[in-house]
């Protein structure tokens, strides 16, 4: 009953304040707009493409790619059978062909890890669009073969890859600011104003007060996280310059894991900011502490964005583990156990921080020290 009342109070405080709701929804809208316009600027108006693709080797995958290309669009594909990969690559470079699809021998039947290579030109809208569709389809088919992607020009593609690789970093930044905006006010604000002490005088347990803060604030921050997630999910196809739809890019499991990773990060950050807020004497002081932590997390997340495939040890490091897993999912190399471990570890760290927060609420030096 007491915990319920504490949780209800936080919700009441939040949902009666339109400013706080806007703060929560803004990150997702910002991510969507940012990535949408970057995608639009790079790929301009979607055109009707008539792909001419050099084909070395054969596979039923070509049929799946054909279906994906035709799905809901007027795009068409013409397969140009080639024997000489080097000559075909030259054709792609000159713009005479949209891309080169190179299947190893016996691709559909070989048990000896067959491979497929896509050679394309990211500077050409048409070639980049084909690459996006073909690579998405090939990833969907399965991972029993090696997928290699070869770009004949690199500058622009590098830019796009950078945009894609810093996405987890951007999401973490938005989640952190969403968590900060509600938690600082609710914990440090209440401590500074003396309203938290009024609750401490009652017979409610300190652990209930800690839970009564972290649970509702996480739910509220989750709105921000959900907004960020949707912004990310809907903007990705635009970033890639194709209209594959929501699930077309990565598949349901990848999106589910991305969502779970974000979900695991939110209570952890809320609990962390709550602990800093409880320690601080004022909102100003708590903001300063949180800003330092945010800078550290941002720096680490940004670093991770450029260091692909981190070791399994990264799953043990809070927040960083989620960034690494998000990064792996976005690059099409999801490691499922690692992603689940990251979610679990972050929730375990959250539990430890809630325990610490309850101890802090019991500490007279922290709560009443001048």
């Amino acid at each position: 009953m007491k915990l319920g009342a504490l949780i209800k109070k936080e919700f009441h405080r939040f949902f009666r304040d339109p400013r706080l709701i806007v703060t929560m929804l803004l990150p997702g809208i910002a991510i969507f707009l940012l990535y949408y316009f970057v995608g639009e600027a790079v790929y301009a108006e979607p055109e009707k493409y008539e792909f001419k693709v050099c084909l070395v080797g054969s596979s039923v995958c070509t049929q799946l790619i054909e279906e994906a290309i035709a799905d809901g669009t007027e795009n068409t594909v013409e397969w140009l059978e080639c024997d000489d990969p080097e000559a075909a690559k030259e054709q792609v470079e000159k713009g005479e062909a949209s891309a080169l699809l190179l299947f190893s021998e016996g691709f559909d039947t070989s048990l000896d890890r067959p491979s497929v290579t896509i050679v394309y030109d990211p500077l050409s809208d048409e070639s980049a669009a084909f690459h996006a569709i073909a690579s998405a389809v090939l990833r969907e088919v399965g991972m029993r073969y090696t997928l290699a992607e070869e770009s004949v020009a690199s500058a622009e593609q590098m830019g796009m890859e950078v945009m894609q690789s810093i996405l987890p970093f951007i999401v973490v930044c938005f989640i952190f600011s969403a968590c900060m905006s509600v938690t600082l006010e609710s914990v440090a604000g209440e401590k500074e104003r003396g309203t938290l002490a009024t609750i401490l005088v009652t017979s409610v347990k300190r652990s209930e007060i800690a839970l009564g803060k972290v649970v509702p604030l996480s739910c509220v921050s989750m709105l921000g996280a959900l907004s960020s997630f949707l912004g990310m999910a809907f903007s990705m196809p635009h970033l890639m310059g194709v209209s594959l739809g929501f699930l077309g890019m990565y598949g349901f499991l990848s999106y589910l894991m991305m969502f779970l990773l974000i979900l695991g990060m939110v209570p952890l950050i809320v609990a962390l900011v709550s602990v800093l807020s409880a320690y601080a004497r004022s909102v100003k002081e708590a903001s300063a502490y949180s800003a330092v932590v945010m800078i550290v997390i941002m720096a680490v997340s940004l670093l991770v964005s450029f260091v692909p495939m981190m070791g399994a040890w990264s799953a043990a490091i809070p927040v960083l583990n989620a960034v690494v897993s998000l990064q792996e999912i976005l690059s099409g190399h999801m490691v499922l156990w690692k992603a689940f471990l990251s979610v679990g570890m972050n929730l375990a760290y959250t539990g430890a921080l809630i325990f610490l927060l309850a101890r802090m609420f019991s500490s007279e030096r922290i709560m009443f020290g001048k």
Partner: protein
Amino acid sequence: MEEIVRAENLTKTFTLSKKQQRIERAEIARRVAVDGLNFSAYRGEIYGLLGPNGAGKTTTLRMLATLIRPDSGDAFLAGHSVVKEAGKVRDVVGFLTSDLKLEGFFTPDYLFDFFGAMHGVDKATLARRKKELFERFGIDKFAEVRVKNLSTGMLQKVSLVISIVHDPEVVIFDEPTNGLDVITAKVVTDFLTELKGMGKSILLSTHIFSLVEKLCDRVGIIIDGKLAYEGMLSEIDDLESRFFGLYRSIKGEEV
């Protein structure tokens, strides 16, 4: 008379920060705020802890309200130890100080229910007490006005009423009229008189002689964390002279 509050050798020491040490020119980093304090308050009376600033009044009341723990000694409220049964003590105590505030965003109606729930008061009792107390103190017309929009007097009334939402046996007020204008101060003193009429036991701290003389049945004079005097108000001719006489004899200095 039934003893409702008993302090036994209550002691509390604080560590001074380096900065504080410099300001106070103190050589020792620790300061004894309350030094083996003993006193008793009885059911149905108003007991006043009188002393200058820094005498240890607030620290004593905070220990009684279980906000801070004594370093040694213990205190018992309605038979419950503040050291061993802090939760039970909080159930029988209503504590009010200017340091404790109400969230301006909420209404008196909401806050009364919220703090009722915090004390585990059932809904039916809560509704009955709310109606009774809000009507008695004229809060009913402002029940749905956000606290931040209330006048100082009304806000004080709301704070007072919320501090007794759970119908506590003992009500503790730390400097109840400090910083209040004359009108709001009267609201508080009237409220304390009403509480006494309701049979509550009240413990208040103050440095204002007239407040003690007007409200209290008994007084304890506290100087340097120690109880210097305890007695019935009716037995004291001139409280002010008594206080300064004690102060001079203990501190050895003129005021």
